[in-house]
């Protein structure tokens, strides 16, 4: 909690993937240095001159660099993220972070399952785990290939990346959870942690697979957020009978907590 910062950061780089995906690189050393995988930032105000849109947007941390830069991967979904997608280099933007409770992993093998832009926190997680010499496999699904971010760097660092697309434009023609069930059936899964982020139906299917194979699961959840800091109680979900704030007690929860 005490490590979060509210800062203004310069947009150093904007890279577009397809027409609906953009990777922002911000110079934000205080945030970047404190960040752990699974944490997020509140980005905004989206347009400081206007009160509309009013709220910030929660965005997972995709990665950090040694130079104190912060990478955010954003899918243009609604009005706010479309506005963000139009941001250009040199812009100074406000952000607050790192926020929330991230992944906790001390296993040797990491199996990551990302759906769409949900891949963002997993890339950061893979990055830090690879650095610790651990084995990572990333199963990455999306609707079409042009809605996927380029993960060559992660592969170069030794992460095994397998793709799935709804339209078959790249990788497995079908769901990313098909890859998961194949993977879990094939490999010995003791000392493996599955970490997943993506749409709810995907998460549920991941949970089904993991519990079937007795593998630990951590999931990153989404919910609408006003504050992102735990103050407004707006993002609470009833998890294991308790009203837990996704922004504070999460966004990462153990699969058992959420689905049992």
């Amino acid at each position, binding site marked *: *909690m*005490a*490590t*979060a*910062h*509210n800062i203004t950061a310069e947009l150093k780089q904007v890279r577009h993937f397809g027409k609906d995906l953009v990777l922002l690189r911000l110079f934000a050393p205080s945030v970047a240095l404190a960040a752990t995988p699974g944490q997020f930032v509140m980005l*905004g*105000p989206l347009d400081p001159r206007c*009160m*509309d*849109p*009013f*709220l*910030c947007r929660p965005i997972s941390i995709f990665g950090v660099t040694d130079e104190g830069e912060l990478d955010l991967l954003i899918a243009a979904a609604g009005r706010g993220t479309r506005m963000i997608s139009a941001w250009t280099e040199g812009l100074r933007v*406000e952000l*607050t972070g790192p926020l929330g409770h991230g992944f906790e992993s001390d296993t040797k093998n990491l199996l990551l399952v990302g759906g769409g832009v949900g891949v963002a926190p997993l890339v950061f997680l893979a990055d830090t785990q690879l650095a610790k010499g651990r084995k990572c496999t990333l199963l990455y699904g999306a609707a079409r290939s042009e809605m996927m971010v380029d993960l060559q760097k992660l592969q170069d660092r030794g992460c095994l990346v397998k793709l799935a697309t709804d339209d078959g434009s790249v990788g497995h023609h079908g769901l990313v959870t098909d890859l998961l069930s194949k993977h879990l059936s094939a490999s010995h899964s003791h000392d493996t942690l599955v970490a997943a982020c993506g749409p709810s139906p995907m998460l549920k299917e991941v949970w089904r697979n993991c519990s079937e194979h007795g593998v630990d699961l951590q999931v990153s959840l989404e*919910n*609408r*957020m*006003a*504050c*992102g*800091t*735990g*103050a*407004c*109680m*707006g*993002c*609470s*979900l*009833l998890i294991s009978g*308790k*009203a837990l704030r996704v922004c*504070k007690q999460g966004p990462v929860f153990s699969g058992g907590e959420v689905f049992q």
Partner: protein
Amino acid sequence: MSPTPDMTTHIGKLVLDNPVMVASGTFGFGEEYDGLMDVRALGAIVTKGISLEPRVGNPAPRTAETPCGMINSVGLQNPGLRGFVEHKLPWLKEVPCKVVVNILGDTVEEYATLARELDGVPGVDAMEVNISCPNVEHGGMTFGSDPQTARRVAEAVRAETDKPVLVKLSPNVTSIVQVAEAVITAEIDGLTLINTISAMAIDYATGKPLLGAITGGLSGPAIKPVAVRAVFEVARACETSIVGCGGIASWQDAVEFIRAGASAVQVGSATFRSPSSAVRVIDGLRGFLSHIDCSSCRELVGKVNI
């Protein structure tokens, strides 16, 4: 440019170092914003509403963005009186700024009990009575929607505590002046104006209400003109101190409320947009007073040119 103006303000017997508070429900119990902004600079922190027993609040989703604002149906999620005193108050006590505890109940008796219990608690500088809650004994109309019911809550709380008491009024009434007039007969220390406006939003594509509780409360800059009007009207009609609240996001907004008749202001949803909003309001207000050669913020109260 005059020397540093006096920012002290009085709301009845509550004295604040500066007139800028953070509004109930938008600042948790303070510690959530520690490190993100200078919590210590605040005139006061108003806590999330506290009930006798802990509550889990409303179903998700609880917030939705609207033009220049948001609606929320957080409901009453809070750790309850005990939980608050044990887990939240200790941190708040360490902060040099004043602590105002927002309270809410299902019955007049619950309000009274909360006031009685909090009366003896050190570190609680004042109470703010949220009467925008459904009156469970009387068919669920909120306490704040009827002048006499509102008065009864105010009297019950006043009878149980010597600490400063603010009563926070709802704008969802035909005449907020009538409610104010009734409430101040209870000799409370001041009124907070306004709570959120009853509102709703529906996803056009799916037809689903954007809030799990279907309706909620509108806040943010969108409601500022409604809040300024409420402050202005009540200030003209009533002899009491007023705390202005509703859409304040800048020091200019704060000046507007003070001129309308507020002795202090609360920054609410604007903190979500930018955590240091309230601190910027304080700095800007100080700068403005100095710029117009006003030696005390109290001089500006009610200074509207009609």
